[in-house]
């Protein structure tokens, strides 16, 4: 073989490698774990990380690192990933350990994380963790070998080969595949991503008895299978090798009363066997002061629930684990300050409008003490109906129309734009007026010109009942980007 041929082969191999590197980025799917990866790289570039949380979407919607840090005075990071199964925890951990030396690793376990990986959806969810891990990892290979078929392996190892059929849908220039997080809808904090929305009324009704814990008869079959025990043993082994402590935990889940208790009993036994702690937050609903409005859906906390869960977990970690005190570090203080300012804006809010006078819809029905707040990312409308002892049983619908300022029509919701409306329309069925009205207005409009509030018959819109109220001179949103 001549010199030129050798150069050709070397050049070809280099180009092939470069091409794969580039195309793997082009064909990577947009998802939240890219935000987590980017946040992790940013965090370890500037600071040490002392606590890692690993688990499913339950983890990334319930454990807020800044809240944990407030209690532990250390720095934590949340590696929660949609649909992650227990056996993938070590894959994420192994990769994370290459660039940080945590003192505590908290691994989430619940019934879903022990489910078999059989469906395309569950296989697909694991790819987020696999994409995070290096392709040279032996552990990654072993897990892939166990989960996927031989003809799926090339796609598992390469997003390009996996998604090549979408060649005409890709952006070949901008390779950033992070999700665009709307700070007015979601809160992101070092891997944590929570929503402000609350459980919808029908689900809230289904889970109204969530505090009633009904023991279920034990089944003969073990929930925790040998592969899960092997994973726990591997995590224990890693904890000894890398000198960190291991904590197993389960976060609040509304479906808890329907989940077999046997799994938690098995977990407690295993935790005792391996001499690691296990905390099941489902046993602390009263202590956490959890309400149904703290849930985003049946199995995920929203931001308000996550605050409660994280405060509880932070106190627990602080009580049982000895972590470095970073509270005197400038970076730690800056992180806490930034978080607290957002928290104030979320809990206390930015008052955009207030009117304590009484306004009438009809001769029989009116309201007073109307307030409009910016609660971090969204609008919150509160008012007291008059008379307060009236039960309308859904006879009327309260309609709130939010108009954007001139030139800001692009902030209208897509559905309003499609219908050619000049406003976003939010509606609420009026039931028991003794409960003060205090609801988020689901609109994407930030530059508000005016609000128009009125009621109409719930059996169909036949025009405004009584008078509509128009609110002008609304204050400005504080930009939270």
């Amino acid at each position, binding site marked *: *073989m*001549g010199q*030129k*041929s050798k*150069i*050709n*082969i070397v*050049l*070809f191999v280099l*180009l*092939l490698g470069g*091409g794969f590197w580039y*195309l793997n980025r082009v064909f990577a799917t947009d998802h939240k774990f890219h935000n987590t990866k980017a946040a992790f790289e940013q965090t370890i570039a500037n600071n040490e990380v002392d606590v890692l949380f690993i688990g499913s979407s339950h983890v990334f919607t319930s454990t807020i690192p800044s809240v944990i840090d407030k209690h532990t005075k250390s720095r934590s990071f949340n590696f929660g990933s949609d649909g992650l199964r227990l056996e993938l925890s070590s894959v994420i951990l192994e990769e994370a350990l290459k660039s940080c030396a945590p003192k505590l690793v908290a691994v989430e376990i619940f019934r879903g994380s022990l489910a078999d990986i059989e469906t395309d959806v569950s296989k697909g969810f694991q790819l987020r963790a696999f994409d995070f891990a290096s392709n040279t990892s032996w552990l990654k290979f072993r897990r892939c070998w166990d989960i996927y078929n*031989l*003809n*799926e*392996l*090339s*796609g598992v190892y390469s997003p*390009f*080969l*996996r998604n*090549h*059929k979408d*060649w*005409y849908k890709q952006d070949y220039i901008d390779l950033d595949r992070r999700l665009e997080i709307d700070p007015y809808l979601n809160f992101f904090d070092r891997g944590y991503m929570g929503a402000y929305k609350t459980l919808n009324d029908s689900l809230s009704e289904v889970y109204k008895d969530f505090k009633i814990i009904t023991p279920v008869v034990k089944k003969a079959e073990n929930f925790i299978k040998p592969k899960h025990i092997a994973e726990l043993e591997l995590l224990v082994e890693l904890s000894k090798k890398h000198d960190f402590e291991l904590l197993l935990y389960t976060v609040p889940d509304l479906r808890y009363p329907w989940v077999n208790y046997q799994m938690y009993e098995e977990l407690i036994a295993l935790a005792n066997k391996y001499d690691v702690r296990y905390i099941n937050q489902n046993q602390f609903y009263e202590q956490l002061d959890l309400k149904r409005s703290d849930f985003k859906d049946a199995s995920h906390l929203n931001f308000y629930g996550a605050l409660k869960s994280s405060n509880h977990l932070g106190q627990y970690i602080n009580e049982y684990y000895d972590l470095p005190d970073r509270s005197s570090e400038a970076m730690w203080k800056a992180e806490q300050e930034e978080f607290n300012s957002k928290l104030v804006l979320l809990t206390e809010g930015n008052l955009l409008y207030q009117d304590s006078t009484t306004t009438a819809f009809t001769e029989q029905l009116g309201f007073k003490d109307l307030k409009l707040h910016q609660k971090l990312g969204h609008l919150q409308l509160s008012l007291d109906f008059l008379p307060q002892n009236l039960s309308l049983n859904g006879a009327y619908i309260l309609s709130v129309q939010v108009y954007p300022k001139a030139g800001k029509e692009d902030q209208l919701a897509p559905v309003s734009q499609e219908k050619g409306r000049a406003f976003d329309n939010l509606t609420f069925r009026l039931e028991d007026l003794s409960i003060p009205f205090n609801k988020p207005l689901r609109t994407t409009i930030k530059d508000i010109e005016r609000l128009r509030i009125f009621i109409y018959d719930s059996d169909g819109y036949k025009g405004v009942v009584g008078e509509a109220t128009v609110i002008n001179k609304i204050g400005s949103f504080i930009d939270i980007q």
Partner: protein
Amino acid sequence: MLFNSIDFAIFFPVFFVLYWLAAKQLTLRNVLILGASYLFYGWWDWRFLFLIIFSSFVDFFVGKALGETDKKAKRKTLLLVSLISNLGLLVYFKYANFFIDSFVQSFRFFGGEIESTTLDIILPVGISFYTFQTLSYTIDIYYGKIKPTKNMLAFFSFVAFFPQLVAGPIERAKHLLPQFFVTHKFNYRFARTGLLLMAFGLFKKMVIADRLGILVNQVYNDPESYGGGALIVATIAFAFQIYCDFSGYSDIAIGAARILGFDLMKNFDAPYFSKSITEFWRRWHISLSSWFRDYVYIPLGGSRKKELRVYTNLFIVFLVSGLWHGAAITFVIWGAIHGLFIVAEKAMNNHGLKVSRKGILGTLVFIPLTFIIASFAWIFFRANSTADALYVAKGIFDWSKPTNYFELGLDQPEFLAGLVAILLLLIFDATHRRFGAVKLLDKIPFFFRPVLYMVIVFTILIFGIYGEEGVSEFIYFQF
């Protein structure tokens, strides 16, 4: 094992390394080839390996015995043993049900009633190819064209040589067998063209054939739901699908063999640039056409007989060729259409009606005309039944149903990608035939070549149909 599968992507590089490590020791190398070939075939169903071994045994010993005797009667008996064994296998596994069905249908046609029971038989992959290859060895010995080999390992390797085992080219012993008696030295240039051929074959298969296959399957599996426009598009798409599928396999086979230092015969030569059906068959599936010429047409008397007999012989060859392609009446009709056009062209030439097909006019008229005839015949090849074929043949003239061409299984970008790929294929075929692709490649500055190779690889990987949709088999595996 399929060439376009992850299994082969692992198998071939491993074999490549072992092969070249053992290349200087002929016996070890042939043992490796035989072992790898049986593994390649057995990956699909190991039980049918016994058929290849049986066929190899029969022809090795028949060939040996033919070489040891001059007695005509004994030689004829030996040839008959080979013919009965190989064709017996083929008839049993491929045609048993067809003959049972045809017999029952004929009986009913004449008013009889008969209980119909078909056999539960799986068609072994590639049986039509390797039985023809082993038969040609024995027939050539019988006619004294070649001497029998005494090396059983070399012969078994020749029969089972994995690059061309399941879908050809159908090699002749005279060309391929001697290559198992010489050691090969790794030749970069030879290997490079082999790799490029493999890449081009994969492009044809994965980018064109499997993409067009989606459209063809949708329309041909329910032809009555579509109008003339869709039926024409699907038929043209099938013409390119089958060409790219089959010639793609041949390219990969020839390329893989070349990387190992073996030379296989050319199987396709830009057939859709033919100006007549006669020329089409000189360029399409060359190894099969020449097999039928040498072992069916010539023994029937070839062109030395009277005119009517020659036409009959030609027609018989194409009927048999149709039947070789599949055990169904649609394949026989496909063969008959080609036979009719071949006979017609021959008759015109014999009676002074030879049309000049030269020049630009010849190109502009006869290339499209030949393509239209070939495509029309493909209707019978592809249709799921004779009734479907007849419906499509009529339906292409019915334009009353509106057609949205991007709702035939391929959306707009995929449809356009298919068109561009076909255009690239035609440009390549025309250029290669005129100038030779390797010669052109040598003219490219050496440091640009890796860029070209990379573009080829990524074009296949980006635009190819594979992965979750699964690896699709080559159409000719069923023949």
